[in-house]
């Protein structure tokens, strides 16, 4: 291997990449857009959801229960005159959940314990599963607490003197007390961008070079495949490393999501992971005959890679065989590391097993990429 030759190749590659305004534009625009789109879209709360309300009881206790729900301020309550109107609104998607208080509510509340229980009906729009799940986690506890205060000892409403029923669960949220979805998604977005954009840009640029014949010209020079490989991968890796720094800055400045861990460590890990994606791009380019085909192949491989990597849906929610598949994707391990650094501020020592996995996958893929280049030569 000749260091001078690799350097020349690297200079050529860097110049070729940065000369194309379109590629540079993608390098800046895609990460920014991905951060903004993904960073703001996942949410655990129910703020602003429209809650249909039908009060068939119309008694002081039913009004107090509804006032409690309204006072909470999370839902946007909307009154309905009858049950069928609520059902129509659910079909049309105008409301996400509904609370229905039957006429017998007050009577049952005042009756002695042991007789008919007071009943409250809650309907959720199960078509939007996440919304319904969030609303359930929220509404059930709230209604339970409100009823408990209504039925304080003796059954008559006694504001203020309400003893807790059952077991009170005092929750404290660590690391992200406001349950803000942004840092979680920002840390995942690095995985998305570095898996997808890097693979795509590499695959397309090399297919284009093949079509124009410049790649073959390189192969007839005295440079070895390893030198060409390094001459391609290192400058592209450098460009993407700068891109990672840009993303860290953008996420921090625009969205207030700075890593809790060390920034240099994060950039170092990310830069290594970029090389893995580049290698995948090289493999795809070796098997494609046109840029369009390369893009289609990248999309086909990257979509499951990103979806199964835990980017938007936690891996532990998946069935066991799918979890095993997810474990063999480098993206899975990178996103884990990225979240550990961003959210929990972990360092290299704690992350050693994951880092080792990344290293193994990275070297393996680079080996395959090198072989695929030789095979085409």
């Amino acid at each position, binding site marked *: 291997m000749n260091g001078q030759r690799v350097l020349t190749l690297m200079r050529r590659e860097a110049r070729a990449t940065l000369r194309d305004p379109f590629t540079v534009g993608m390098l800046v625009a895609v990460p920014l857009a991905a951060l903004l789109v993904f960073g703001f879209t996942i949410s655990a709360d129910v703020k602003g959801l429209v809650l249909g309300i039908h009060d068939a009881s119309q008694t002081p206790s039913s009004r107090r229960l509804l006032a409690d729900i309204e006072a909470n301020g999370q839902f946007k309550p909307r009154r309905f005159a009858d049950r069928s109107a609520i059902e129509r609104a659910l079909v049309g*998607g105008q409301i996400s959940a509904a609370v229905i208080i039957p006429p017998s509510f007050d009577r049952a509340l005042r009756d002695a314990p042991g007789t008919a229980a007071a009943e409250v009906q809650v309907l959720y729009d*199960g*078509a939007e599963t*996440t919304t319904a799940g969030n609303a359930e986690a929220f509404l059930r506890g709230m209604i339970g607490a409100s009823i408990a205060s209504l*039925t304080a000892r003796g059954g008559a409403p006694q504001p203020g003197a309400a003893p807790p*029923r059952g077991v009170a669960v005092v929750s404290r949220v660590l690391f992200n007390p406001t349950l803000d979805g942004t840092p979680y998604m920002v840390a995942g977005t690095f995985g998305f961008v570095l898996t997808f954009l890097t693979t795509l840009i590499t695959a397309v640029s090399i297919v284009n070079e093949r079509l124009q014949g410049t790649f073959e010209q390189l192969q007839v020079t005295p440079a070895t495949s390893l030198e060409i490989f390094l001459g391609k991968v290192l400058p592209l890796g450098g460009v993407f490393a700068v891109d990672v720094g840009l993303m860290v800055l953008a996420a921090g400045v625009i969205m207030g999501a700075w890593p809790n861990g060390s920034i240099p460590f994060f950039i170092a890990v990310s830069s290594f992971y970029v090389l893995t994606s580049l290698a995948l791009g090289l493999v795809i380019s070796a098997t494609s005959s046109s840029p369009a085909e390369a893009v289609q192949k990248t999309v*086909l491989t990257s979509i499951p890679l990103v979806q199964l990597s835990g980017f938007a849906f936690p891996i532990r929610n998946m069935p066991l065989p799918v979890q095993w598949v997810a474990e063999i994707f480098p993206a899975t391990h990178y996103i884990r590391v990225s979240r550990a650094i961003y959210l929990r501020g972990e360092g290299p020592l*704690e992350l050693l097993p994951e880092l080792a996995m990344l290293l193994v996958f990275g070297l393996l893929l680079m080996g395959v990429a090198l072989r695929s280049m030789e095979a085409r030569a």
Partner: protein
Amino acid sequence: MSRRAATGSPAHFLSNIGAVAYKEASAMRHDRAFIAAVFLQPVMTLLLFGLALSNKPANVPWAVLDQSQTSASRRFVEAVQSTGYFLAPQAIASYDAGRALLKRGHAVAVVIIPPEFRRAMARDRAEVQTLLDGTDPVTAARVGGYISLVGATFDVTRDAPSAIPLAPLELRQGFLFNPRLRDREFFLAALAGILLTNLCLSATSLGIVGERESGTYEHMLSSPTTPIEIVLGKLTPYVAISFAVLLLAVVSAGLCFDVWPRGSWLALVLVTLPFVLGSLSIGVFVSTVSRTSAQAVFISVFFILPSFVLSGSMIPFQLMPPGIREIGYLLPLRWYQVASRRIIERGAGFSDVLIPFLAMWVFFGIMLLLIRWLMKPRLA
């Protein structure tokens, strides 16, 4: 036949479109990569949506610091376990051990049962503390909700007979349209929309720029067809394929996962037409503004992916912050997923999806005008 006559009458307009459509369809038949993508993507997406992805917590690792060590505290732990969302609890000896587990991501929740738990029950002051890992807020909120619910419905009188029994409340709740609240239904109802966006955009974004690159576009322009006839003709075969993909998506979701449309099939077919035309027109638009086919695919890919999110196909749009939520209404996929969820999951008829239907036609009209305006200078 003079050029004027060939471009004038409606009959010629249609036969010109037909000729371009025929040419496009025969070119498509030989594109093996395209055909593979058309059939591979539905299968892959169906499996991902049907089997893999879910927001509902499962296999949640958790730990218990049981300082009470009574039958009451053990019953509480069992009650949490029996909700079915959790793995077997890890017993820990100290608060710091719990924090360490959370920090390493080895537990999502740590339940701390204080020493006076059993005695406090008799005084109606029983309390447990929960520490949650908030890094994944959706999971944290749900898991916290499940544990709180166990507490709220915990029968304290079994361990402390003097305690006040639970409020005689029956909270009857139901999830309409999806009683078991499976994410599968949510994803599969949007399957057709996602597949069609992918298909329409990636196919047509290459169309015009590709023809321009290979020089065949100039051939067509020199023939007596107008640009808009070329565009419509090129789109026609894709409309046919799109309906085949719609059928494939709906029937395979039904056969594999028993998610059949509950509403009107006719309504589903009707709303699909403006959606397909709208998505195709985005592809054509991308194709007219790109200089190379590589650029065209780039632009379309990076239009497709955010649109999956912003439209609410993958993540419910109701939970997005105001501002972001409204951006989605500029996408035909938003309107289509709203309509298809109403039809497939909630059993709606055509009158329930009239607004999305019209909105998508308006979108297509605007795009068509835009494309016509963009293509004009090249003709002059």
